[in-house]
């Protein structure tokens, strides 16, 4: 009886045990097998903290491989509050930071500094997270602090990616500067985060995507106390370093032209017309790119803006072309066969044009040479830069063709003016007026005879950039081959051919040759036995002023040396009637530099 009873009880107990075990087992099955994914995700959320890793920006080289811009990181100084204690030598810390680096200074007092970190130390979670003390500290300061690491418990460094620039030349306008990303361009899904830097100007801006590379992601393993145990390499996505860029810039030539231009306001461009490569491009005054590492002082920025240092005069400054524009007018005269080479004009130093509204007082246009050039043909008009010849010829032709301004505009556009030349960095398109533009801006009484003489010699409403002028010089040097100027070394040559007869180029090139090589030429000063130099000078009033005190001094030309061609354009602003030949002087120096370097090689 007892035994039977025991068997029954044992059975009941057994079944209860089995039931409870099955319940537990099914719960484990549900969690471990059926809803596994959800918990695996929670576990990895616990385990990993993903931090983006920023790739080194691409390095920019010049044509021969000299490093123009590289990376030299600056550092953020951080302190782990949990390691911070009274043995921290605050005096030494302040001394090192405030003396070694002018860019960053500590503004809070030593007591505040200690109290601040001790506050963090008392917080159970914040004490494991480093507090940033100061950013953009240079390597020297970092080294000084590292040497005395025992005095600074809890001190760590993190990297701020920063550019490093050579001392000279600046090449500031071509390279461009970097700034922290503007706040409004950091949106969801944007590549950038609030602390990233981005190219704002020049090559850095245009090739931002190429130079920046691709960010990676570091998966830090963080334990439950917030301690960082290192990086999981398998889970991390490595960054892709930025691509390097090779520029067409010739570092030595660039340094030379920046040096000679540094005393003036203006622009110099130096190119190879055959392949469109820009060997040097300077705009003065310029600025030091190193100032853009870390925070830029507001005052500095304001001063630079006021002095228009940030404008790249080579591509974004628009000026009257002055006598250089006579080349364009001449191309039209010759190609349209408006004048023959033997047609002459008598220049007595001035040109009178009767004014329709005021018949008694004729409008007077002057030649630069008061006593006049006498009888002169197109060739000599270019060589001696006679204005009267062009006044007379353009008006003669306007009588035949009322809208000759549109022909002139068409030829200017053929020769690359009034449009963007197509360089990589920012440029302006300038302006060569046509009849529509004149009607809009000067009213319906146009065309009057009075505007054409000025337009034909590059004054009036004409505005060009130095880059457009050198492009024009290149077209002449190439006898009608238009090669797009470029700053990138490995870019394919992009050229097209103008439908202008060979004869035109012969005449223009001969004239430009005589400008330099004839004693009567305006640039005889540049004559050099060692090379064949052709060119054209120009003097123009600045757009804003009409007095003779503020003149633009132009020179555009090219040199054939050992089968190589170098074209240059020099523009100096703010010259007066005595210093207006400064462009020629600078050009001579540049040609000399190139020739001597060529001989030495």
């Amino acid at each position, binding site marked *: 009886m007892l035994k039977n009873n025991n*068997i029954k009880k044992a059975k009941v*107990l057994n079944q209860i045990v*089995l039931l*409870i075990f099955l319940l537990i087992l099914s719960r484990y099955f549900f969690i471990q097998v059926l809803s*596994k994914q959800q*918990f695996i995700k929670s576990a990895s959320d*616990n385990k990993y903290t993903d931090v983006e890793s920023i790739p080194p920006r691409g390095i920019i080289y010049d044509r021969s491989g000299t490093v123009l811009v590289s990376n030299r990181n600056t550092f953020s100084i951080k302190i782990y509050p949990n390691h911070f204690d009274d043995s921290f030598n605050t005096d030494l810390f302040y001394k090192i930071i405030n003396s070694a680096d002018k860019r960053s200074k500590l503004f809070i007092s030593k007591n505040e500094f200690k109290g601040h970190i001790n506050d963090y130390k008392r917080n159970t979670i914040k004490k494991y997270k480093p507090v940033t003390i100061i950013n953009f500290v240079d390597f020297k300061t970092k080294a000084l602090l590292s040497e005395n690491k025992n005095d600074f418990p809890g001190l760590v460094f993190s990297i701020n990616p920063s550019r490093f620039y050579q001392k000279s030349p600046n090449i500031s306008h071509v390279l461009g500067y970097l700034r922290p990303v503007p706040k409004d361009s950091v949106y969801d899904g944007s590549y950038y985060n609030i602390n990233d830097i981005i190219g704002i100007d020049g090559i850095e801006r245009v090739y931002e995507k190429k130079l920046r590379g691709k960010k990676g992601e570091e998966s830090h393993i963080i334990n439950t106390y917030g301690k960082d145990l290192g990086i999981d390499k398998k889970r991390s996505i490595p960054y892709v370093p930025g691509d390097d860029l090779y520029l067409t810039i010739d570092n030595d030539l660039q340094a030379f032209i920046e040096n000679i231009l540094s005393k003036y306001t203006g622009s110099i461009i130096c190119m190879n017309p055959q392949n469109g490569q820009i060997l040097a491009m300077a705009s003065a005054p310029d600025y030091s790119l190193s100032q853009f590492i870390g925070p830029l002082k507001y005052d500095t920025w304001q001063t630079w803006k006021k002095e228009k240092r940030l404008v790249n005069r080579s591509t974004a400054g628009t000026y009257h072309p002055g006598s250089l524009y006579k080349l364009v007018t001449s191309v039209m005269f010759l190609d349209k066969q408006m004048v023959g080479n033997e047609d002459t004009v008598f220049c007595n130093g001035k040109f009178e044009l009767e004014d329709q509204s005021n018949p008694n007082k004729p409008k007077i246009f002057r030649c630069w040479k008061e006593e006049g050039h006498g009888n002169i043909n197109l060739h000599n008009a270019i060589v001696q830069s006679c204005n009267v010849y062009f006044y007379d010829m353009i008006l003669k032709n306007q009588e035949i063709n009322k809208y000759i301004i549109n022909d002139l505009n068409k030829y200017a556009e053929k020769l690359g003016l009034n449009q963007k030349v197509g360089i990589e960095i920012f440029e302006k398109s300038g302006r060569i007026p046509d009849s529509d533009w004149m009607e809009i801006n000067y009213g319906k009484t146009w065309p009057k005879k009075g505007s054409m003489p000025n337009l034909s010699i590059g004054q009036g409403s004409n505005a060009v950039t130095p880059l457009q002028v050198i492009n024009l010089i290149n077209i002449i040097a190439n006898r009608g081959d238009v090669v797009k100027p470029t700053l990138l070394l490995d870019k394919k040559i992009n050229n097209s051919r103008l439908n202008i007869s060979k004869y035109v180029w012969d005449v223009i090139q001969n004239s430009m040759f005589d400008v330099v090589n004839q004693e009567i030429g305006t640039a005889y000063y540049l004559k050099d036995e060692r090379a064949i130099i052709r060119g054209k000078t120009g003097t123009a009033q600045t757009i804003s002023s009409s007095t003779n005190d503020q003149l633009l001094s132009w020179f555009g030309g090219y040199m054939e040396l050992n089968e190589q061609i170098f074209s240059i354009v020099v523009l100096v602003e703010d010259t007066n009637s005595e210093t207006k030949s400064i462009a020629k002087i600078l050009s001579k120096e540049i040609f000399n530099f190139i020739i001597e370097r060529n001989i030495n090689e």
Partner: protein
Amino acid sequence: MNRIFNFNQIFTIRIPILISIISLSIISLLILESAGSYKTEFFGMMFSRVQKQILWLFIGSITFILIQFIRLRFFHERMFLLYLFFLIFIFLPFFAEATKGAQNWFMGFQPSEFGKIIIVISLAKVLSDNQKRLSNVFFLGLCLLLIGIPIIVFILQRDLGAVLVYSSIVLPMFYWAGVKFYLLIFLISPILTSYTVLYMSIFNSNSTEYGYPILLLSLYIIINFTYILIFLFKTKISNNYKLIYITSYLIFNLICSFGVTFGWESLNQNNSNRSEDLVGRIENFIIPSLNEYSGGWHIKQSMVAVGSGGIFGVGLGEGSQVNLRFLPEADTDFVVASIAEALGFAFIFFIIIISYNLFYWLIFYAQKSPNIFKSLLIIGFASILFAHIVITMGMAVALAPITGIPAPFLSYGGTFTLTCFCMLGICNNVTNNK
């Protein structure tokens, strides 16, 4: 015949007992080693945790063998003396400092652990000696007092684990001794009533999405209703007795529910730190996943550890929850979660098979034993081990409240491992005397 030991005793170690001890211990050592084993001082020498656990296993094995020579009648004879010692011992921790919120340690040992053996012996003796009084309600009340005294002490020491484990022996041992079914139900009913009432009031005062109050309440009502019907029509006792039983059953439960409500309200209104702590503990006990930042955080991390283990685990020493210390008490209270993460569902399944095998055979030994005292010993010890296993396994997956009790042979810890060896040793001893 008053000697404790009888060295002429011939004994065999039962295979199911041996298998479970060895396999669970091996798993325990693997987990302990993989979780990083730092060295601590122990009896004046430096030991790593693994070495320490091996030492305990060794001491336990020797104890196990020594116990085979014990005359179990000795316990039967000296029960009251043992119980007295036990009472003195469980009061000792009041003179020591509290650890982890519970005040149940004294000199590095937990008196409540060895007490588990004594309480089973005591109850077994009282029940086996009074076979004819089992339907006497006052006698049963006296038996309950035997366990009630230490339980009250443990409540004061805030050792919820011990309360649960000590309570767990009552029903199986009463049932095995032959206490009538309806009396057992009478005993369980206040627990169910208190649980339901507390669950409802906690659920109402905390807005939480976890828990099923409507289901619980309807289940409670249906069970009681069905039980009363079955009792009225199926039980073969006199109608007068039935009337008295039902009336007292209802009144008892009603008083219980009012008492619990009143107690809970007054505890909530008392703003002292101690009572707030108690409120938190009880809340987490009743609804384990209620509060994310106290006990609930443990459960969450434990669930993540278990879930991320998958079928075959992430590998020993690879578990991020354990190694990065997200899982608290990874080698003691939450050792099952560590195992689940490192070795996966496969080993959980294995542990449950091993455990079920052990209990199957323990019940079998109890059934075969001709001596009611000795069979009650087995049932009592089996209940205690069962409670430990179920609570530790359930705790890791939010099935059981967090109480901080170890898993037999799996958790790191000396006293409890030794206790388990003693308990299984006594069970093995019972099978020797045929």
